[in-house]
């Protein structure tokens, strides 16, 4: 059971690159990369808010509670 991040998918849907998002949100590419690759241990509300604002999405579009891959697969 893990929280998985689907930032790459949302970025793909919006046709936005990580660099562009980084510039818009004001978070370094290195940090966004940590988030995208699922290495992040925590995410600040302010970061999540900024990402959601720029990508025009809900936190639930980016974060998934993955119960052995079931929920994530269902969401697909």
């Amino acid at each position, binding site marked *: 059971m893990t929280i998985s991040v689907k930032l790459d998918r949302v970025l793909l849907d919006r046709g936005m690159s990580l660099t562009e998002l980084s510039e818009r949100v004001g*978070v370094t590419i290195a*940090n*966004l990369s*940590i*988030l995208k690759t699922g*290495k*992040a*241990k*925590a*995410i*600040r509300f302010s*970061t999540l808010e900024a990402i959601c604002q720029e990508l025009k999405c809900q936190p639930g579009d980016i974060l998934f509670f993955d119960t052995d891959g079931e929920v994530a697969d269902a969401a697909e």
Partner: protein
Amino acid sequence: MRAIGKGSLASILAVGLHITRIILWIAFIGLSIAIVIVPVFSIVVGMIGGFDSLDIDDDLIVGAGDYMEIAYHFVGFGVMLFVVTRLLEILQTLRFGSPFVKENAERFRTVGYALLIGEGAKFAFGFMSLITDSDVEIDSEMITWLAIIAVFVLAEVFHEGARMKEEQDLTV
């Protein structure tokens, strides 16, 4: 007083530890030479002692107790050298600005174990001195044990600190 850089307590400590390490190395090398020379010296004195005409002072005859004393100091200097080296490594991470790393927690833990070994060796050699004629005494002070406990507590604090630092680094 500044935490790092020139004139800071850390840099003063580092200088002190470097000097201590040099002294310990000299003592360690001296003891290593003594370990080689003492048996040879003992054989030579034994050979000379074979000539009844020569008067050999009893102090020159090397006994089991002398070997044990050398071994005791060898362990003692070894432990001190190990501890000083680890402390210097810890100070170096402080100089680079990242003391809260798992390696430092491990270093503090090994320092704790080294001190435990040192104290254990004190007891072991003290008991062995009862058999031989060496001057190693069985003595241990409460403050030493408290210092060892303090080192282990520090190791745990650093372990948790390293975990928190990692979590902070991976917070986006």
